[in-house]
């Protein structure tokens, strides 16, 4: 089974995100989006059951490749990435088009995504890729049970439902569904020997174009300068008074 997982390098979420002309400023060193760890974990579990290869695909400035290394450290076998200046500010459809083309080069049976990246949050790329590849899309997976078949539990608005995984499909995985593994020292060392290959944009068919023009970005002043009280045992009274004032009680 060829399992392809999409992973994104993002600026370390511990730091504040900054923008330049509407684009996220990306430092040389970016990290693996935590959201992608869930997809990688599911890919590795499928590999353990069915054998096969786990390929990580990625689009964006490669920089020091730290995030790509982190994906390999978890246990993926190799990485293919596209890094091209002309893709700066690519919309979700362009991103999905490139990732679909990369998935084709891996001859993927199963293509796995997180539901949405932690920096962009568009949340549409997995479904778009499935449409480009004409594969079934099973979105918002929150649990996987691997036995005779693979049973996937989908999150729905009202609760959940289950589906048997077909032989070929695209999956999007929500956080919390599985427990991503932590690499040990051996895994970290082994990852250094694994191939990370750059794919030239010119070798891929781009089936989308830019249709979103950046106009303006404005940081909101969220600070309300509200009243702050240090609790020395009596602050509950202030809360109760306030709730009375607000006619809650």
């Amino acid at each position, binding site marked *: 089974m060829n399992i392809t997982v999409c992973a994104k390098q993002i600026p370390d979420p511990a730091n504040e995100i900054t923008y330049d002309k509407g684009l996220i400023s990306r430092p040389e060193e970016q990290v693996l989006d935590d959201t992608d760890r869930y997809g990688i974990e599911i890919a590795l579990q499928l590999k353990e059951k069915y054998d096969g290869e786990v390929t990580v695909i990625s689009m964006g400035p490669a920089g020091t490749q730290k995030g790509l290394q982190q994906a390999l450290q978890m246990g993926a076998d190799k990485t293919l990435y596209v890094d091209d200046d002309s893709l700066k500010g690519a919309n979700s459809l362009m991103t999905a088009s490139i990732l679909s083309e990369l998935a084709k080069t891996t001859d993927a049976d199963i293509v796995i995504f997180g539901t949405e990246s932690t920096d962009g949050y568009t949340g549409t790329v997995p479904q778009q890729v499935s449409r480009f590849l004409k594969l079934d899309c099973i979105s918002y997976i929150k649990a996987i049970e691997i036995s005779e078949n693979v049973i996937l539990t989908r999150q729905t608005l*009202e609760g959940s439902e*289950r*589906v048997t995984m077909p032989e070929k499909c695209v999956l999007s995985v929500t*956080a919390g569904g599985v427990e991503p593994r932590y690499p040990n020292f051996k895994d970290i060392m082994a990852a250094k020997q694994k191939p990370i290959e750059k794919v030239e944009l010119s070798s891929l068919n781009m089936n989308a174009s830019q249709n979103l023009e950046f106009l303006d970005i*404005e940081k909101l002043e*969220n*600070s*309300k300068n509200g009243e*702050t*009280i240090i609790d020395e045992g009596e602050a509950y009274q202030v809360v109760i008074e306030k709730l009375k004032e607000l006619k809650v009680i």
Partner: protein
Amino acid sequence: MKTLIIGEVTDSKLSSGTLEIINKANDLGLDFGVVTVGSEDSPAVGSSTFQQTYIKRSSESLQFSNVADKISQIIQEQNISLVLAPSTYQSRDLVSFLSVDLASSPVSNVINFEIQDSSVITTNSINGGESIYKTKITSSHSLLLIRPKSFDPIDIELNNEYETIEVENSSLEIFDIFKEEKSGPQLEDSKIVISAGRGMVEKDNLSLVEDLANKLNAAIGGTRAIVDAGWMPYSQQVGQTGKTVKPDVYIACGISGATQHQVGMKDSKFIIAINKDEEAPIFQLADLGIVGDTLSVIPKINENI
């Protein structure tokens, strides 16, 4: 501008997210119709004020791709140029599929939009609502995924008079459908919401929040961290990947206030935050901040109301 709203059904009627978008479309004077996708038999989604088509999907087959085929066809036949949908699981799937068919990247997290010289200009919430971002759509089709609570819902009579279309099942059979029980005030429409975060330390302590919620007739929410930890079902998650709430009073208990959480609650009218860490970002949003141990403050509130 010829517009199609993709609607949804909750509790056998049009969802509040759909009614919010209809209200905005009315305000802008858009020429719109509605296509609502649901699995229920004849829900109240029709109205005398707009054209409604109901696509009844099967609850036993994962067939959103077939539903999208049908909507694509309607968009082509009716020369639709603007597609509006609430930012929910179902519509995110549908709009993503449509975006490939129409070769037009959608805009996600839209909180407002306008038409200027026949172009659609969107205002999106980014970075957990810390910033707003304006985009002009330059393609012939514009696809918008709109965050819930961005507009007020329209107040209209709903009926069962509309055309119903069924779509073919796919090969993906759905089983073990589980519906979470709804009890007590619901997050989306409660005037008071009490939310819990990691500062509650352990699941058993949530009973403190439940006691307070009972006393105030409040709905209970939680952060992604505690939902991921299994303390609460996903339906109670407030934030970027969960629900957006806008109550009169929001009480954040032991919540640090990561941007992902803020986007789901920052428009609440009055915010009370209780947290040990005085540097916690939640205090920036709070109208009343209590720097203290949630586990000692809440029981005292409970005892004294």
